[in-house]
């Protein structure tokens, strides 16, 4: 990273940094860069390296090649269910919660009365901790005392919404969507406010219906928001952890990749190499999306 200013124009060439300026830049850029390297990028690289070793955290670090990955894909029964749950999470947030948030944003953006009230209420769950969401989910879905069973009057043989390994992932997804919808809605609301109203008027004059105007005119201009929503949805689905951990520590039908990593490193087994391999799988998936997003950002940067 060069601290020398780019000398593109004559005017800028005249601007030199004094010694004091360089000291300020060195310290105040140095600290965050070192911190980012030490907390984020260094550990990321270390995770990649550790994933090729068999290390228990105490003894020698043994190089084992791709053995962890082979075990992960063929010999670790929790892996595929967990990966499936993460995919399901992505599909549910992306295909249900996000479009629902968009719908709510469009309805509120039409300028209905009380829109402030609706906006605040729908957004409220977003400020809650995911752990709290997990605990509230237990109040609603618990078998013997939960509100849901009380509402549907199921007292004879109550459904164990969070205990049944075939059902619980859906209940947890509902709780996650409760929070994700409001987030997406706020992003789209801001985007919709920025859409030039004359575009819509022009479309109306040309005889376009409301749906046509929305899908052909408004949605394409929301492209930057769509990208952000996409990135957030992918990241949230990969990071999903708190809710399932609050419900049952991510067991019995609620396995997720993030839980497997945590279990492998802070569990008694302390299989650090193996846990890292799972983390690297998550890294690769997320990097694909992050890079796409950044490429778009850089393009926007150049057009600025």
């Amino acid at each position, binding site marked *: 990273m060069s601290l*020398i*200013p*780019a000398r593109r124009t004559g005017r*800028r060439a005249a601007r030199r940094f004094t010694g*004091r300026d360089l000291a*300020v830049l060195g310290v*105040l*850029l140095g600290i*965050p860069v070192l*911190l*980012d390297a*030490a*907390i*984020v990028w*260094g*550990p*990321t690289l270390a*995770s990649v390296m550790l994933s090729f070793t068999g290390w228990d955290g105490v003894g020698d670090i043994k190089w084992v090649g791709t053995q962890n990955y082979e075990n992960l894909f063929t010999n670790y029964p929790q892996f595929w269910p967990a990966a499936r749950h993460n995919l399901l999470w992505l599909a549910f947030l992306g295909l249900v919660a996000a479009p629902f948030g968009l719908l709510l944003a469009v*309805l509120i953006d*039409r300028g*209905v009365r*009380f829109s402030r009230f*609706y906006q605040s*209420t729908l957004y*409220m*769950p977003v*400020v809650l*901790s*995911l*752990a709290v969401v997990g*605990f*509230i*989910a*237990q109040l*609603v879905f*618990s078998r013997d*005392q939960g*509100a849901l069973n009380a509402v549907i009057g199921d007292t004879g043989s109550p459904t164990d919404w969070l205990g049944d390994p075939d059902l619980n992932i859906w209940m947890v997804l509902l709780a996650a969507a*409760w929070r994700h919808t409001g*987030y997406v809605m706020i992003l789209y609301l*801001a*985007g919709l406010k*920025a859409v030039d109203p004359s575009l819509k008027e022009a479309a109306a004059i040309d005889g376009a219906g409301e749906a046509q105007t929305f899908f052909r005119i408004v949605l394409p201009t929301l492209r930057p*928001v769509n990208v*952000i929503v996409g*990135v957030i949805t992918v*990241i949230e689905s990969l*990071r999903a*952890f*708190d809710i399932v*951990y*609050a419900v049952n520590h991510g067991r019995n039908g609620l396995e997720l990749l*993030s839980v497997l990593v*945590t279990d492998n*490193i802070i569990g008694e087994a302390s299989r650090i190499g193996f846990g890292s391999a*799972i*983390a690297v799988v998550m*890294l690769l998936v997320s990097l694909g999306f*992050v890079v796409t997003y*950044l490429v778009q950002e850089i393009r926007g940067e150049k057009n600025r």
Partner: protein
Amino acid sequence: MTVRAAPARPTAPPVPTARRRNRAGRIGVHAFLTAVSLAFLAPLLLAVYASLRPYDETSEHGYFSLPRHLSLDYYRQAFTDSGMMKYFVNTMIIAIPGVLVTLFLASFVAFAVARLRMRGGLVLLMLFTAGNLLPQQVIVTPLYVVFNRIPLPYWMSDSMTMFDSYWAVVAVQIGFQIGFCVFVLANFMRTLPQEILEAAVVDGAGVWTQYWRITLPLCRPALAALGTLQFTWMYNDFLWALVFVSDGDKLPITSALNNLRGQFFTDYNLLAAGSVIVALPTIVVFLLLQRHFIAGLTLGAGKG
């Protein structure tokens, strides 16, 4: 009959019909938004209601029964027996320095990237932004290992290592959240007029003056927005403390919520009270600073 009926009930001219349909549509929108809002609020209201009622009552009559006995006993219990106050203080020890340092460091990086036009600024921006988008599990393992090996003097950490100390949690919070703040603040600073800075340079202002005296005061809205958002995020965080703190007395309030759940028996009403206590500060912050909160999220997303 038909001839006489016609003048009595003239066919409505086209405009009122459209308006009537419009009004029906608007009522439909209101009905829909109200229903969704109530559904979104219901779990929160349920948690509050459940927390006010004794366990015996709800276990016998279910959560959907009329109250026979309302009290704040569970809140008293949560504060006195379970020490929620202590955990709340722990959270503040982590979140307040976390937010302040993050904003300070991030605003300088953003200033350098957006205002000084340094070579490599874009790369720096991308590294910080991408770092914030990685899944936490990717960095958790190496940090866990390293923190266990960093000795700290007793006055800094009674565990004598960085592991199981606030330092670890605060450092990770800052390192991880800096990326988001750099991204948002750089976008914001680009919208400020460059002329102000050039005038200052002509007057001989150094880098520090340009940053602290000229740029930061103009960033107050963005800093307020980010501060609100970051405080909520750090307050809500669950994973870092779970992994890096082993002493139950040092847990922040979100992670400590797990302690309200017994080993063999869970008093869901107590858990409800705990959830309300944890959720309340963020909801109050949100309701008071809603404008900032939403601005913080959309500042980053509104550009592209």
